[in-house]
């Protein structure tokens, strides 16, 4: 039971981490009205893929994604998973860099970004080296530490809401489905880690559905808070709409000047845990595909990721690369669950035929 709560916490934390920074900007660019349609469509698509993924994983009890790919053959594991790992390295480095930019703008405008990058990398790699158990256990405590801040942000921003900013609330037909950016957005979802923990625990779709509902609600809030505060025309010109929305709040009895500080603290908690999960996934794949201790792989890959994060020159390129990376991630999000589902389905039928 505890472990399911832990997995749910990691699931929510990872989605929030990706959801807070670039996600709202993309949604504002996709449509001018009825943003909830996009979020809901994305959510349903994600739910469908998750269902395939979990169904596929259930065909192979006590095996994780890597084991299943190794069953198909070593070449399959290399062909399917190594590009995935390369993309994960890119994703982790760009993700930390994007968060660093936001964190610097909140806390330390005069500090060089490499020092904060170093700090965040160090903590993430340390957590990843300690293994899955540590990540899952600390996730609960980080969750308890982050969720009050999320709620504080939501409720304190309510004083600036103007309901007219989000009308009209309906937009038909949904043209955004044909836009490529919609699929980029899918890459912000991060349910693939679920397949890496199934060697010990069996996933139950019902529990994950609860986590999914919470994530979708939180993502709706992340998108709608800046919208309710500023309106579509302003929001599209801002670099960090959520941050600006937090900065606009002024509660007279509250002793802190900037609400954004809580948003920054929350981001730190989210980014550390998310990146440590990704590092751990990288280490896991590399260890199983090429026999070597996973801690060496984690350290090696983190050095590469750190160099990538440092050499990206400016924010424009950063966001561009991040979108490419999340687009590639969307591809893996579609291909890996379907591959596993189809392979599981076929091999399961094969077993049944042989039994007859």
């Amino acid at each position, binding site marked *: 039971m505890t472990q399911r709560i832990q997995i749910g916490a990691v699931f929510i934390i990872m989605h929030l981490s990706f959801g807070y920074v670039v996600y709202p900007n993309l949604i504002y660019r996709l449509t001018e009205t009825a943003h909830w349609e996009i979020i809901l469509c994305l959510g349903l698509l994600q739910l469908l893929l998750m269902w395939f993924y979990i169904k596929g994983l259930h065909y192979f009890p006590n095996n994780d994604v890597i084991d299943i790919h190794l069953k198909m053959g070593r070449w399959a594991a290399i062909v399917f998973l190594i590009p995935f790992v390369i993309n994960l390295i890119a994703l982790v480095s760009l993700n930390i860099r994007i968060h660093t930019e936001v964190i610097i703008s909140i806390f330390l405008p005069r500090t060089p970004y490499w020092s904060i990058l170093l700090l965040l990398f160090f*903590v993430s790699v340390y957590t990843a080296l300690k293994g899955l*158990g540590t990540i899952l256990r600390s996730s609960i405590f980080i969750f308890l530490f982050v969720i009050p801040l999320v709620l504080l942000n939501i409720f304190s921003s309510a004083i600036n809401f103007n309901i007219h900013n989000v009308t009209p609330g309906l937009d038909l037909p949904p043209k955004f489905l044909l836009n490529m950016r919609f699929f980029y957005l899918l890459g912000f979802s991060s349910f693939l880690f679920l397949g890496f923990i199934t060697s010990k625990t069996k996933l139950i779709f019902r529990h994950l559905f609860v986590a999914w509902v919470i994530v979708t609600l939180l993502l709706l809030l992340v998108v709608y808070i800046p919208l309710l505060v500023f309106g579509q025309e302003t929001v599209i010109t801002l670099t960090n709409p959520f941050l600006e929305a937090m900065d606009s709040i002024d509660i007279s009895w*509250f002793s802190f000047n900037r609400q954004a500080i809580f948003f920054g603290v929350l981001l730190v908690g989210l980014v550390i845990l998310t990146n440590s999960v990704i590092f751990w996934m990288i280490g896991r794949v590399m260890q199983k595909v090429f026999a070597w201790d996973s801690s060496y792989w984690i350290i090696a890959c983190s050095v590469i990721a750190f160099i990538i994060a440092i050499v990206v020159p400016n924010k424009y390129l950063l966001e561009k690369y991040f979108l490419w990376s999340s687009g590639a991630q969307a591809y893996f999000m579609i291909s890996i669950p379907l591959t596993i589902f189809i392979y599981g389905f076929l091999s399961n039928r094969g077993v049944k035929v042989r039994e007859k």
Partner: protein
Amino acid sequence: MRANIVKEIQSRFSDHYDDFFIEEELVEKTTIFLIGFNTLVDLAKSKLFVQQMADSSASVKALFKNLSDRINIDTEQLIQGILEGNLVIVSQDGKQNVVVDPIVKNLRSSISEPKNESPIQSSTDAFGDDINTNVGMIRKRLSTASLCHCSYQVGELEKRKISMLYIKGRTPKALIEKVNEQLKGINTDIETIDDLNLQFGKRRLSPVSHLSATELPIQAIHSLKENRIVLFLDNCPFALVFPNLIWDMLGGINDRNFPFILSFMLRFFRVIGLVATLILPALYVALVSVNPEVFKLDLALFVAKSREGIPLSAFLETIAMVVLVDLILEAIVRLPKSVGPAITMVGGIILGQAMVEAKLVSNLLVIVITAVVIASSAVIGMQNSLYIRLLKYPILILASLFGILGVCTGFIITIIYLASLTSNDVPYMTFRIKQEGETK
């Protein structure tokens, strides 16, 4: 004419064993030798006891049989028996011998009140030095057939007694077997609790022990009922609960003598104490020196005013005060009870007034430091209080470098570090241990 066996024992204890005695006694017209240490054996009373037994026995052989079951054993075992504080009796011809539990000199204090913990509204018995008394105290309070007891004698120089207690059918079998193996495998001397702690896996540089020490029988029994193992070390007035969990620091069984809502309140305050100890000094440094802009203007001005004219940087003044307070806490422990208050008074005056009036540290910092000292004492157990006092230093250093970002990263690193600790695969941050045979 003394028998060979007596001579052999005598030669072993010839020089520099001034408390060693060999007494001759006449029983049934034959001589017997009483051998032992007069520092451990009450000779006069023991002699009387042997005489009385002799009166009711027909022969020396019958007497020996009546006295003890350990009859006619070899010399090495006899010597071991003497060292353990027993009385050894050898017959005149040396062919018969016996190791008797003598009437001992009372070297132990009796059951008293706890010295390191102060339970409210509960039984005030505490464990003592004698291992058998301690195990007896548990058996007396937990009269069930499923309470199991394994005893070990380990060590190189001296054989030290260790007892392991657990409840059969509750504590996981794998855990019991592992601890059993680890205790059997000890081949060094166990002098302190930390020596025993190191036997459960490498944690030499970790401030968190595998064992949680408690003086209170009710707490030890509660741990047993919570599917854990309780260890006793001879001459150590503590029950050592294995594994140590973070919950031990926050909630004890004594809290539950109050209604639920009150015990919840107590535990909640302990959580606040824990978090405040870790982050308050760091938060002061961060807010004063790195991120003053997060406060509202009037508050920011107030903070700036309190630091007006102070030459030290915020980090230096904080670290100086924190170290000073930790020194005071240590000094009070070392001093005899009659001198202790002097330190409290001098410390109070210097910290409270002189340093502020001399403009060496700010008013605000003194308040923060006071809060930290009080908060760090709110958690249960001295060792826990010590280790959270240690963990605040890394966060303080990170805060001086990165401000609020450093405080929050430091706090997260601390959480992750504590979450990474396990003892025999039981994580430190778990809330309970699964009962054996329980389904998920």
